[in-house]
């Protein structure tokens, strides 16, 4: 027991110490802040620890669950506090606005109190705004005051939150009544409020704010980490918004937030820590809000279409960015597409070829008709034989001689036998003559051609003649000599020599033979002379030389 008590005391003592420190700080004079006293500093640290730990439950996502003070710099401590305070500030501001609006909607119930509260809230807000400015300038001390004020503000929020719950309960009840007429657009409560406001304006009454101004929350929620001061909505602003810039959100945005708040408030009822869930909710970004909406499926058709469009657009954009499938690329080789993929795709070709004819009965019938027609006509396309050129000469027709032959049969046989054996020369008939002549000519020509064209020369054919050749040398008949040798060379010298007897040279002659030759010469000479004289006498008729008579000279 004692230990437990001691434990409790120990637990409480840091808290108490912190509180005491805070009290001391509060009561201290301002000049004391400026002095450098370690005691004061210790107090300040303790107080800040206490405040920090008291605020921790209202804030999630904190890296530290208590303020680390020992051995840390002023800057570091300040940073830790900052980590806690920033989100808290924004949530607190939101809560203020919400409460303010809801507070004003409860016009008929407790106007005076609400107004009073509202004024208080306004005052407190102003204080906070002033404090915010102060925090930026000073150190830890001012921050503590700001956090202190936050705490106060939160306490107020708690109260207002409860009041809100009551409000919303009333509103729900009201809605259940007028369900037949009402829908998203038309709400009886809103209509009444509006009418009252209009009357009030007309007649100069103070205007009560109706529901449906929730759009401000949307706008403000979007500005999350803003340290700037926001202009809290005044009446004039609201009217301007309605009249000039009526938007979709004016009509439907409120529904979203309202529903969300319902959830939020439901959550609040369930949980003991009131602000935490609201904070959680309002810390969500717009995307989360949208997600919640899509899950709830209470969108209008237009919004649904928009969503579809958006998703389609996203898909298409994604498809455009991705590389195309192989079928959509231009010329694709086999290497660029997966194996056997061309078999799976239904390839479409334009065939420029006429398809093969299908043989129907009609076709065969038409063919047969053509055939029949042709047969009847007898018109066929057969191969025809060409007429052959006459290449042989016309045959000789031997005419029969009808006269009786003069020779007897025996004689005819005799002649034939003689021809065959070669005893009698063959008789040449006219045609035979021509033939032989022709063959002779031809043989000559062919001999010449052969001489021109063949390497092996065929000699002249031997023509056997029976004629006698005078000057053929005896040897030629027997001897086979080359033709290049002429006949002249073949004759022996004696056969060529025409002279007679024994021929002797001058040197070889004897004396008597010389005398005899001379005497012969003289006689020959004289004779010649006498003959020429005689002729000359005969020509002239007289003897020209006197003393010369016609006597014969001595022989």
């Amino acid at each position, binding site marked *: 027991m004692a230990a437990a008590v001691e434990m409790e005391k120990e637990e409480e003592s840091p808290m108490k110490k912190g509180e005491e420190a805070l009290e001391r700080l509060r009561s201290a004079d301002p000049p004391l802040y400026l002095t450098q006293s370690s005691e004061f500093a210790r107090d300040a640290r303790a107080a800040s620890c206490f405040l920090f730990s008291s605020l921790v439950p209202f804030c999630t996502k904190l890296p530290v669950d208590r303020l680390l003070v020992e051995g840390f710099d002023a800057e570091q401590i300040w940073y830790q506090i900052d980590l806690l305070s920033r989100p808290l500030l924004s949530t607190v501001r939101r809560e203020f606005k919400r409460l303010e609006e809801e507070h004003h909607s409860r016009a008929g119930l407790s106007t005076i109190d609400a107004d009073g509260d509202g004024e208080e809230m306004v005052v407190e807000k102003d204080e906070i705004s002033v404090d915010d400015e102060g925090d930026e300038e000073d150190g830890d001390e001012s921050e503590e005051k700001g956090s202190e004020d936050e705490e106060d503000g939160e306490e107020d929020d708690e109260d207002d939150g409860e009041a809100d719950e009551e409000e919303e309960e009333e509103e729900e009840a009201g809605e259940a009544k007028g369900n037949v007429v009402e829908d998203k657009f038309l709400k009886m409560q809103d209509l009444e409020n509006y009418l009252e406001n209009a009357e009030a304006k007309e007649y100069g009454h103070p205007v009560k704010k109706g529901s449906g101004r929730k759009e401000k929350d949307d706008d403000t929620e979007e500005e999350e980490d803003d340290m700037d001061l926001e202009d809290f909505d005044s009446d004039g602003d609201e009217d301007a918004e309605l009249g000039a810039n009526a938007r979709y959100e004016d009509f439907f945005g409120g529904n979203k937030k309202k529903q969300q708040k319902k959830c939020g408030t439901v959550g609040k009822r369930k949980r003991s820590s009131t602000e935490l869930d609201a904070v959680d909710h309002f810390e969500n970004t717009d995307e989360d809000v949208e997600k919640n909406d899509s899950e709830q499926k209470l969108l209008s058709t237009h919004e649904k279409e928009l969503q579809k469009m958006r998703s389609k657009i996203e898909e298409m954009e994604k498809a455009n960015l991705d590389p195309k499938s192989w079928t959509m690329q231009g010329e694709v080789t086999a290497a660029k597409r997966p194996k056997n993929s061309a078999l799976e795709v239904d390839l479409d070709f334009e065939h*420029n*070829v*006429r398809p*093969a*004819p299908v*043989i129907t009965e009609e*076709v065969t019938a038409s*063919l*047969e008709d*053509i*055939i*029949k027609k*042709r*047969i*009847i006509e007898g018109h*066929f*396309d*057969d*191969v*025809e*034989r*060409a007429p*052959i050129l006459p290449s042989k000469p016309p045959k000789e027709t031997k005419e029969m001689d009808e006269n009786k032959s003069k020779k007897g049969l025996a004689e005819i046989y005799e002649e034939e036998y003689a021809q065959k054996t070669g005893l009698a020369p063959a008789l040449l008939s006219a045609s035979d003559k021509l033939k032989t002549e022709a063959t002779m000519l031809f043989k000559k020509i062919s001999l010449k051609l052969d001489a021109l064209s063949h390497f092996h020369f065929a000699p002249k054919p031997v023509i056997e003649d029976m004629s006698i050749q005078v000057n053929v040398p005896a040897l030629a008949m027997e001897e086979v000599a080359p033709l290049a040798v002429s006949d002249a060379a073949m004759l022996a010298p004696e056969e060529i020599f025409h002279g007679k007897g024994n021929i002797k040279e001058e040197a070889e002659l004897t004396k008597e033979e010389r005398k005899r030759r001379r005497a012969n010469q003289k006689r020959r000479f004289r004779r010649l002379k006498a003959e020429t004289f005689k002729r000359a006498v005969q020509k002239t008729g007289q003897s020209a030389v006197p003393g010369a008579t016609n006597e014969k000279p001595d022989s």
Partner: protein
Amino acid sequence: MLKRNTRLRMEYLYRKSLEGKEREYYEKKRKIREALEEGKPIPTELRNEEAALRQEIDLEDEYTAVQKTHIDDEYATASEKDPKILLTTSREPSQRLGQFVKVCFCTLPIVIFHLELKLVFPNAARMNRGSQVISEIIEFCRAHEYTDVIFVHEHRGEPDNLVICHLPFGPTAFFELLNVVTRHDIKDKKAMGTMSEAYPHLILDNFSSKLGQRTANILKHLFPVPKPETKRIITFANKSDYISFRHHVYEKHGGPKSVELKEVGPRFELRLYQIILGTVDQQNEAQKEWVLRPYMNTAKKQNVLGA
């Protein structure tokens, strides 16, 4: 033998190359002849050459007046000699044979078709391809004086291609076969009876363009000269570049005007896709007379073989 063949081929090619000039010449002479016959003035562009050409015209006889083309060279002996055809298939035509017996072998459509084609063409000899090279086959044919070789190709047993090669350096025509119906399929063997093997009459319908005439020529010269009174008819009918082959036997029962046709023999569609001026083994080197162009934008509108 080889040298001789090459020499002949060179001569053929040379004469073919001269055709251009000869054609011009021929055209000029023809114009002059026409002008003279009709009594019109000679066209002005021929005035300079008119005298020389006129001389030549006078010297011409019926054989030299007509322009000789390489086609005439190719089919010069066709009218004198009967064509002798060798039928064969692509290599190893029955790849799904496996352990099948010969009977089963015979029931494959390609082989059946092959057998039937042999009956269609008179003077045809069938040869099993085995693993012979094309050039060997051509040499063999040249040695044995065949005028044409026909290859039948197949895809998974179904005949799909026909190559008709005319032999002494003649043209080769490549056809695609479609809608093949063999005799086997039409009716039972017993109902059909044996096929008549007389030399048939030919009908070549709607081959009106120049290329059509050329194809008609190629197809015509596969068949010998028939007797005028045969009852067997083979039809090649062209309709928008698809040539239908039909084989009928006819009878004239009730007088000259009534004809009864009885279909006999295989039926298929041919589609020409190439003609080359050479034999099959010169497929890469020889000049292509005509090639099908199916990817042209106007391919659908064209009727190449006529009408």
